[in-house]
């Protein structure tokens, strides 16, 4: 079995951690051939993308672009002065009574979290959705030391009991439908089979309420950290994050260092854009701002609050040339807008982060040589850049990654030779014309042989190939190839003058 096809047999979160270097073709073949998946993703992404456009147009009108620029500037400024804001955050958070930890790697972050669980003898954890914990593979690390972990985001919960893996930053079960949920609930929770969404939600709710009541550890991520106040902010639509972070005795927030914003007024701008960009909502239903553990006079809230700040490759991206990528607020708008994501879904990217932003940061986090397909599996159409609320120029950076692959010779030699020769031939009009002529003769001869040489005059008489040789074989695997007509534009111009 090739490395590419082994990736098809993986289950659960291993789906997001395939053998490296990752070859995406097998999963891409599978996804594009799966009619059901095509329907789910197409419908979900299209409607979310449309909602985003409509709501943003309604709210911001002509100022949408200016709003995105402002958000981009806020994030960029914070990243440009990250050391300052980190320090400010740590001081403020410590002042509120929270414990702040630093983790350079995913492993360290896991060790810190596991350490807290062991020291406090915690055994039952409720967890809300967090991308960084996926990156770290935190859940298995906790399970290994005897902590039962329950995902409380409805989508993540279903993924968990179905031994599947999330496939979208915001909508983890975008690749599944109600029938899959109904079957999983029937099998794992012993509930009667139903496809009614209200009933399904109620079943999950009843199951989860019990878990909240008995949990002693609550784990969450954070959408933002506010430097001045030392607060962690989580945005959820189900209210599960709020329960996770207020009922259990010990609370741990695990957050990437790029999530900082200077102050509350900056937060307001980003919250406005996050809700609208991710689900086309005017505001996320629950915006939960946590500032420290339970105070002395308070009745509710965790006794201990820990914040683990995770680097895990981020300072590497913080280099000036690539810093912009860290502005990402994980809204998922670029995934919904992307024609490639709309055909593949998340799993084909072979990593925790999928879609355009995943194609960019996965090779940055894990190595270009480990994910050579990701920067290339894009038509560079720019829909992601247009959708991004913090204006990350994703196509530009994908091209930069491709250039890096050429420089580091990760690009294979036949490609380097081909482009080298092509580039040379384009440097002179004579070789350019000659190249064009050879190509034309070759194609036209083949079209004649296939009996498809065209009609029309000498400027439109193109033929067609349904099977082309060499690098063009990929082209004709999916569609026919037109051949050039007899005469070129240059010829016309010459004859005319």
């Amino acid at each position, binding site marked *: 079995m090739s490395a590419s096809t082994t990736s098809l047999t993986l289950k659960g979160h291993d789906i997001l951690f395939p053998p490296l270097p990752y070859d995406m073709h097998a999963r891409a073949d599978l996804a594009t051939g799966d009619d059901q998946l095509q329907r789910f993703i197409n419908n979900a992404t299209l409607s979310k993308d449309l909602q985003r456009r409509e709501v943003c147009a309604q709210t911001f009108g002509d100022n949408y672009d200016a709003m995105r620029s402002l958000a981009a500037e806020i994030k960029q400024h914070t990243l440009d002065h990250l050391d300052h804001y980190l320090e400010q955050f740590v001081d403020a958070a410590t002042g509120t009574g929270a414990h702040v930890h630093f983790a350079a790697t995913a492993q360290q972050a896991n060790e810190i979290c596991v350490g807290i669980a062991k020291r406090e003898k915690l055994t039952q954890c409720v967890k809300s959705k967090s991308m960084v914990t996926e990156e770290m593979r935190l859940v298995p690390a906790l399970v290994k030391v005897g902590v039962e972990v329950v995902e409380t985001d409805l989508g993540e919960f279903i993924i968990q009991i179905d031994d599947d893996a999330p496939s979208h930053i915001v909508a983890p079960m975008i690749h599944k439908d109600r029938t899959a949920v109904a079957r999983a609930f029937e099998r794992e929770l012993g509930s009667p089979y139903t496809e009614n969404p209200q009933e399904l939600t109620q079943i999950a709710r009843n199951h989860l309420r019990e878990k909240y009541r008995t949990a002693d550890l609550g784990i969450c991520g954070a959408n933002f950290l506010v430097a001045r106040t030392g607060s962690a902010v989580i945005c959820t639509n189900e209210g599960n994050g709020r329960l996770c972070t207020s009922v259990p005795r010990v609370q741990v927030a695990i957050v990437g260092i790029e999530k900082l914003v200077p102050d509350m007024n900056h937060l307001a701008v980003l919250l406005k854009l996050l809700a609208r960009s991710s689900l086309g909502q005017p505001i996320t239903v629950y915006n939960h701002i946590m500032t420290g553990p339970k105070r002395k006079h308070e009745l509710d809230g965790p006794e201990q609050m820990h914040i683990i700040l995770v680097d895990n490759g981020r300072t590497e991206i913080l280099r000036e040339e690539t810093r912009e990528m860290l502005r990402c607020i994980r809204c998922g708008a670029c995934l919904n807008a992307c024609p490639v994501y709309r055909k593949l879904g998340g799993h084909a990217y072979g990593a925790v982060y999928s879609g355009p932003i995943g194609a960019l940061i996965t090779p940055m986090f894990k190595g270009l040589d480990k994910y050579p397909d990701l920067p290339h*599996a894009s038509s560079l159409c720019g829909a992601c850049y247009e959708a991004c609320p913090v204006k990350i120029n994703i196509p530009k950076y994908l091209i930069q990654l491709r250039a890096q692959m050429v420089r580091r010779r990760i690009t294979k030699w036949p490609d380097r030779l081909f482009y*080298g020769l092509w580039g040379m031939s384009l440097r002179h009009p004579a070789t350019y014309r000659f190249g064009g002529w050879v190509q034309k003769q070759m194609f036209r001869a083949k079209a004649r042989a296939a009996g498809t040489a065209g009609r029309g005059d000498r400027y439109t008489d193109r033929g067609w190939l349904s099977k082309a040789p060499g690098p063009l074989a990929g082209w004709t695997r999916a569609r026919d190839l037109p051949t*050039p007509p007899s005469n070129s534009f240059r010829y016309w111009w010459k004859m005319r003058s």
Partner: protein
Amino acid sequence: MFSASSIQCDRSMIGFACAPGCHTLCCVNVSLFITCLTDTFYPRTGIAVVKVLEHLGCKVDFPEAQTCCGQPLWNNGFAADAKTLAKRMIRVFEDAPYVVTPSGSCAAMIRDYYGEMFEDDPQWREPAQGLVDKTYEFVEFLIKVLNVDLREHDVQWNGDVTYHYSCHLRGIGVTDEAERLMAQIDGLNYMPLEKKEQCCGFGGTFAMKYPQISGSIVNDKVDCISQTGTATVISNDAGCTMNLSGACRRAGCDVGFKSLAEVIAEGMGLIDVDVE
């Protein structure tokens, strides 16, 4: 900027050369950047562009030393080779007041990336910016520079069409310009595509290296095209046209492809109506 109805200035009407700084249409000199694909695969589009521009009063010039803008090399990471070609482009079009190209993606290559390419190169930064500032995609040029209103030119073209919006227009801020022009053509019935904003899946080498992905994206487009029931698709980017027409042919969707330049030229009676 100009009014398309004032085709000639007073001086040129009586046979004199225009005064310096004269801004009527007869004094707009345009250099055509044909692009590799249009040159070889869609020469008729190039012919149409020349004839329409001339009909509108422009003087069109075609610098024969031009080759390629370097887009395929740049997009695949061969930045040094792309730069060599970019320098060549800048030199070839040095004296042109306007550079017009029938391809949105080649216009976007120049406008989006030539600046970045020579950011740190004091010798080339300015000339590069010069080319960036004067390069236009054909349809964009008609609207933004020539201020053309086709209703003043009696353009008659009978038939149902749909239109493919090429992604690279997004990058250069072109949105509904082609649709505005189509609305000014007599007899042309425009039926918009569903998922108009979605890419056709071309992406250069992407189409060859990831045929399963590119193929399923383009087939999506083919479905949308056949849903309109039109016989003609207007597509203004040679790459998109190759991809879309090839996929339509493979799927048995019997439609013809034309650029808007061809439709306008046919509608103005400048070239024969072609039934592909």
